[in-house]
């Protein structure tokens, strides 16, 4: 290393110079003695004539520069020596900083994985994603894509892709799901991905619709499902009933282009009818595809945006009926889709706030320790200052110590973050539909740079204030023992109060999130435990609605006969079992057409008989749907309490008439509000209609209440369904609690993280409070000794110390309450069944904090009462 070389070089230089000066003086002494001078006089004269040898050696050395490096090296060695002498202090400080830095590094790793990490493909920074605009949730249909592809000049290549998960893949008689993507033939070449095995799609294979059934599988699927052998190439598998030939395997690190949603399988756009059948993406009104393009050399994202907008306007002009006002949004191909950004950024933000608070507490704590330590060293500092050491030089040296501590903390933090990443990743491992998530969290340069930068910043943050303070002030009084600690005491007091405030805010946040997570896992007016769910899609294998209805009836009949099954129901596909499927335009009868404001849109769900029984949603009044509520019978509906109150505030809703999409319905039941709504959204009007009266359906989501563990029942349930028709794709089968956990993952995640952080924060601030009081008791031992010698009782000494400590704790608690009121507003969208200003949580946290603070104060206070007055007075 270069600087190391310089250090060695410099020390050799210094040695030579010193030898030279010494030799000069010796020679002169000898000369003078030869001239007859006695040795003592000769030496004196030689030294006098020479001048200040040390100074000249210094100046001579300075000529060569690099002095700061040497000073730094000296400071580092000095600091290391200091750390070795105080192993307890060093260990505590490094662990605290490690926790703080580790928490932040962990969160940053996720932010990096979500938003910053480029795709693992060739030159990923030249890739641009194109989404629909202004509605980013919709993409483009195939004709739109073809127009963009054929008319754009800004891209070398423009590919289309959309995730059509799940695909039901039958291979060797084994039927399982795969997450698939429909992609254009140039997808892999635009990304610059090369096949690990075989080949990717040719242009000819993506030219004629429904003609070339070829598929590419991922490395993971090849290994898991096909044993990883070369026989995979040319193998025929059935995807949603259609035979496909596998032609290639992707490299191990390629998971598709959608962050967080890895693909197992890719099929050409011309076979898209095999995938999702909600609509036909060859038509203008079915926009499923996102685009990804590689910029031509020298072109920029802004140019891509301009060109895509122009082309979108041309399409709109040619197809005003379907495309009026539709544009395109071109963004660098990194991070989540625009529609998903908020989901990820909200989570990242709350976790980052928690992590930063933890770091601040750790910093305040270590700063407090440093102030205490510098009090112990105040004489050393004062002496060094008074014999002429530069103040900046001392500050620099103290900062070197802080930075070194922070550096060790950073190393520990990096290690901790590697452990923590694994834990947190567990939350992201599967989503609410049971699909595996994939996030690349391996350590990269950005994360490394972040943790190094953060360590430096931390070192300055906690080191600067104590360093400035311990080198300032009145020297004479500092040289005398014991003075100069008032201001330090004040600083430490504020540091402790600040820690307590931050801890309380963290505790309140954690408390609210814990209660919220509790509500989520127990459900609000529905009971997810002991319920198995799964998705049935006869539509994928071309069932007609009539055939699907017979199938469903047979499935329900058989499942209800299965031992251990208590009740069976199902609801319309798409959306979660307890969420809605659709929106209705609601109006009340006998209203003039002009009063349009009385008509409003309301979310609803289409559910089969025994749905309320199965999910245990309480009915406040009326009945649930039965087998008789079918086409031909009068149309009936069940409203929730919020809707009932809104429509008929004074009277009962049962028997009332309302219009849904201009069809007349009669209210036969009122259900409790059963949807989990967070504190931001609040309760919501909602209604249910019978599945059998809904427009003809083929697909459904089943919910089955069982006596035992739903996960254990699922194989038998699957088997029973397979005996009705083995070809029906069954997907998303899991315990309902797992689905709930998946949907409310952000709540559980932030609740767990905040709870850990709050626990640590409480511990740290208790240590801080304990430290400041112990220190104060030590410092005041003489005063306390005198008091006791003069007759103060132990009780009054106890009170003296306790008052001092609890005053700090209360100051911190009051600050913390204000801080909580501000910060918990950020949490509102994660709070289910608990308002952000929940008094019980606030009080419980404040109480817990005060109790812990009391304990932290009591220990030093009791020690104060045990001070021996004689010993204290004899001191000095």
């Amino acid at each position, binding site marked *: 290393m270069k600087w190391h070389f310089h250090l060695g070089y410099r020390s050799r230089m210094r040695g030579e110079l010193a030898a*030279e000066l010494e*030799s000069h003086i010796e020679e002169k002494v000898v000369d003078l003695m030869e001239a007859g001078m006695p040795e003592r006089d000769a030496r004196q004269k030689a030294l006098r004539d*020479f*001048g200040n040898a040390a100074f000249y050696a210094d100046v*001579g050395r300075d*000529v*060569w520069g690099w002095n700061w490096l040497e000073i730094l090296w000296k400071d580092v060695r000095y600091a290391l020596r200091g750390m070795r002498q105080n192993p307890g202090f060093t260990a505590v400080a490094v662990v605290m900083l490690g926790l703080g830095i580790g928490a932040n590094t962990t969160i940053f790793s996720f932010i990096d994985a979500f938003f910053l990490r480029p795709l693992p493909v060739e030159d990923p920074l030249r890739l641009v994603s194109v989404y629909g605009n202004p509605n980013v949730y919709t993409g483009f249909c195939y004709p739109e894509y073809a127009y963009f592809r054929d008319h754009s000049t800004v891209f070398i290549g423009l590919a289309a892709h959309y995730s059509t998960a799940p695909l039901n893949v039958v291979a060797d008689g084994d039927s399982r799901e795969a997450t698939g993507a429909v992609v254009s033939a140039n997808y892999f070449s635009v990304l610059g991905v090369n096949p690990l095995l075989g080949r990717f799609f040719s242009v000819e294979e993506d030219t004629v619709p429904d003609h070339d059934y070829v598929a590419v599988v991922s490395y993971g699927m090849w290994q898991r499902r096909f044993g990883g052998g070369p026989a995979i190439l040319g193998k025929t598998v059935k995807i949603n009933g259609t035979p496909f030939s596998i032609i290639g395997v992707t490299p191990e690190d390629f998971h598709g282009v959608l962050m967080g949603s890895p693909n197992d399988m890719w099929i050409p756009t011309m076979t898209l009818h095999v995938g999702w059948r909600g609509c036909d993406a060859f038509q203008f009104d079915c926009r499923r595809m996102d685009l990804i393009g590689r910029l031509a050399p020298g072109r920029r994202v802004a140019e891509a945006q301009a060109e895509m907008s122009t082309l979108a306007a041309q399409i709109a002009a040619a197809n005003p009926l379907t495309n009026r006002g539709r544009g395109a949004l071109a963004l660098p191909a990194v991070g989540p889709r625009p529609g998903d950004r908020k989901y990820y950024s909200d989570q990242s933000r709350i976790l980052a706030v928690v992590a930063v608070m933890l770091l601040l507490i750790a910093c305040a704590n270590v700063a407090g320790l440093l102030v205490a330590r510098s009090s112990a060293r105040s004489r050393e500092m004062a002496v060094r200052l008074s014999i002429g050491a530069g103040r900046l030089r001392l500050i620099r040296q103290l900062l070197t110590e802080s930075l070194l501590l922070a550096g060790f903390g950073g190393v520990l933090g990096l290690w901790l973050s590697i452990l923590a990443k694994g834990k947190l990743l567990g939350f992201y491992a599967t989503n609410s539909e049971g699909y595996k998530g994939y996030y690349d969290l391996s350590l990269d340069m950005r994360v490394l740079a972040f943790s190094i930068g953060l360590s430096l910043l931390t070192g300055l943050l906690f080191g600067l204030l104590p360093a400035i303070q311990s080198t300032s002030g009145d020297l004479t009084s500092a040289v005398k023992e014991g003075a100069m600690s008032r201001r330090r005491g004040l600083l430490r007091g504020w540091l402790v109060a600040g820690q307590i405030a931050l801890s309380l805010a963290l505790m309140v946040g954690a408390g609210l999130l814990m209660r919220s997570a509790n509500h989520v896992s127990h459900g609000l007016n529905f009971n997810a435990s002991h319920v198995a769910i799964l998705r049935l899609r006869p539509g994928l294998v071309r069932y007609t609605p009539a055939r699907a209805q017979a199938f469903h009836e047979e499935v329900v009949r058989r499942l209800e006969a299965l031992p251990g099954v208590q009740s069976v129901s199902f609801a319309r596909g798409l959306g979660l079992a307890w969420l809605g499927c659709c929106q209705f335009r609601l109006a009340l009868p006998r209203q003039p057409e002009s009063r349009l404001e009385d008509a409003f849109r309301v979310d609803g769900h289409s559910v089969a008989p025994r749905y309320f029984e199965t999910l245990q949603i309480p009915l406040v009044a009326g009945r649930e749907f039965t087998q008789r509520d079918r086409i031909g019978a009068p149309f009936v509906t069940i409203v929730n309490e919020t809707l009932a109150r809104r429509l008929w505030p004074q009277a009962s809703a049962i028997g009332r008439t309302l219009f849904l999409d201009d069809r007349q319905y009669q209210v036969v039941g009122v259900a409790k509000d059963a949807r989990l709504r967070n504190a931001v959204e609040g309760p919501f009007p909602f209604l249910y209609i019978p599945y059998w009266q809904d427009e003809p359906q083929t697909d459904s989501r089943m919910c089955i209440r069982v006596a035992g563990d739903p996960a254990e029942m699922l194989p038998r349930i699957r088997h029973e369904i397979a005996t009705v028709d083995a070809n029906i794709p069954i997907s998303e089968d899991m315990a309902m609690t797992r689905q709930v956990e998946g949907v409310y993952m952000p709540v559980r995640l932030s609740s767990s993280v905040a709870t850990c952080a709050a626990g640590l924060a409480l511990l740290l601030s208790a240590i801080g409070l304990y430290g400041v009081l112990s220190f104060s008791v030590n410092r005041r031992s003489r005063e306390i000794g005198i008091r006791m010698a003069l007759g103060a009782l132990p009780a009054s000494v106890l009170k003296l110390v306790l008052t001092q400590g609890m005053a700090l704790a209360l100051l911190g608690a009051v600050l913390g309450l204000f801080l909580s009121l501000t910060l918990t507003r950020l949490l509102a969208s994660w709070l289910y069944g608990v308002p952000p200003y929940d008094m019980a949580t606030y009080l419980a946290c404040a109480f817990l904090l005060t109790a812990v603070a009391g304990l932290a104060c009591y220990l030093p206070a009791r020690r104060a009462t045990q001070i021996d007055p004689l010993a204290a007075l004899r001191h000095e």
Partner: protein
Amino acid sequence: MERADSSERRDLFPGVLEMMVLQLLRRGPLHGYGIAQMIRRASEDLLQIEEGSLYPALQRMLKSGWVVAEWGLSPRNRRIRVYKVTSLGRKQLEREVSSFERMLAGIARVMRPAES
């Protein structure tokens, strides 16, 4: 405190000490003590230069490449560092001398009217 004292007693003009050292070295290699002795003797004790101040000057000249140094043995068998002037140093000396002479001439002109 020491610093302030010592720097007051440095050579008269910046660069003059270096110039004298270069001039002495042009006649042959010398070690530090030798240079100091020569200056003392040649200036007949007129120049009150602390001998130590020679060494920072020598370090500066070493760094600038005007002189090179190597360790050798003195006639008294003592390890000494002997300095030699380089061609760069010779050129520097010429420049210094001419600029020094110009400076002397300038000072002389300024001083003359004051004498009359």
